[in-house]
């Protein structure tokens, strides 16, 4: 297994980092940030064409030959809405991938796991490659897997909050049990060390948007995230030292030049 390859539903992507396309100051900044991130997949939202204005189109700024489009169902509050949006997204993008969101609470944007499961079952039957956005609930993750999800995408923290991994213990328990499909941590990553930590816990990938798009310098932060994901994955594979409560010298204690000559 290569450190930087993420395999979802039989397809391989040469980066473990997936980035969003929302909230950038401009499409051009976004384009450069995506390139700097090294991402091979980007999320997009499906929305009505705004007939009152014309202008640049998002897709003109994404190198779609190299970068896979992952339409989301952001903003959907029921399984039905999400299924409908997923179908529209497939038609617009001609790909079976969908980042499935069914939101259960407007303030936290926490998932409605019941609706998520229903929508997953419908879309799997229709041939979608379903990547559901969920919380760090191991029991739900197992159900989603059993329902045919191609990956599970537990949150690190509320969407856009930048709080980083709020519950590493529960995320670890989830990662220990879900092996047959990738676990991609989605939402809440605020800075590089958050991304590294996610990967060190054993996640297969990370998805983020606001952490990059909202940074003062999105392109630079995108590069930071690229290395952070790489670093975290390598550290996971390299096998870190155990934590110890006391010190342990790095230099040998033998052979010290001590007291037996005149002091300096």
């Amino acid at each position, binding site marked *: 297994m290569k450190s930087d390859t993420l395999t979802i539903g039989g397809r391989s992507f040469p980066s473990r980092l997936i980035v*969003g*396309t*929302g*909230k*950038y100051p401009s*499409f051009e900044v*976004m384009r450069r940030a995506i390139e700097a991130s090294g991402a091979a997949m980007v*999320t*997009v*939202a*499906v*929305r*009505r*064409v705004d*007939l009152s204005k*014309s202008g640049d*189109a*998002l*897709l003109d700024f994404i190198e779609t030959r190299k970068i896979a*489009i992952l*339409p*989301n169902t*952001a903003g959907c509050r029921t399984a039905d809405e999400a299924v*409908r949006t997923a*179908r*529209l*997204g*497939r*038609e*617009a*993008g*001609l790909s079976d991938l969908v980042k499935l969101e069914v939101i259960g609470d407007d303030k936290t944007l926490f998932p409605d796991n019941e609706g998520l499961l229903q929508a997953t079952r419908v879309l799997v039957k229709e041939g979608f490659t379903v990547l559901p956005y969920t919380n760090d609930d191991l029991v739900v993750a197992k159900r989603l897997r059993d329902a045919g999800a191609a990956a599970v995408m537990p949150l690190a923290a509320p*969407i*856009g909050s930048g709080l980083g991994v709020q519950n590493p213990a529960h995320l670890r328990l989830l990662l220990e049990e879900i092996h047959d499909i990738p676990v991609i941590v989605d939402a809440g990553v605020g800075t590089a060390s958050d991304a590294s930590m996610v990967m060190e816990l054993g996640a297969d990938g990370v*998805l*983020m*948007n*606001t952490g990059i*798009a909202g940074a003062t310098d999105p392109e630079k932060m995108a590069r930071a995230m690229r290395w952070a994901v790489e670093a975290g994955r390598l550290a996971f594979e390299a096998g870190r030292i155990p934590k110890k409560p006391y010190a342990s010298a790095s230099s040998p204690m033998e052979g010290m030049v001590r007291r037996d000559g005149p002091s300096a």
Partner: protein
Amino acid sequence: MTIILNGQERMAPAGSSVLALLETLGLAPGRVAVELNGVIVRRDTFARAILSDSDRIEVVHFVGGG
């Protein structure tokens, strides 16, 4: 005839196809998805899909999102 396009009433010539509507709107068919009365219209059938009075049409595309 009157159609409801993306939630808003709009006039359209009777017998228009989805493709004709998109051309009127200045939209490239390759970048949008269309739902007609809640059912997806596949892109290769845009020319054959004829609109009727009171039809509800959704024309969507990709925008930035996370």
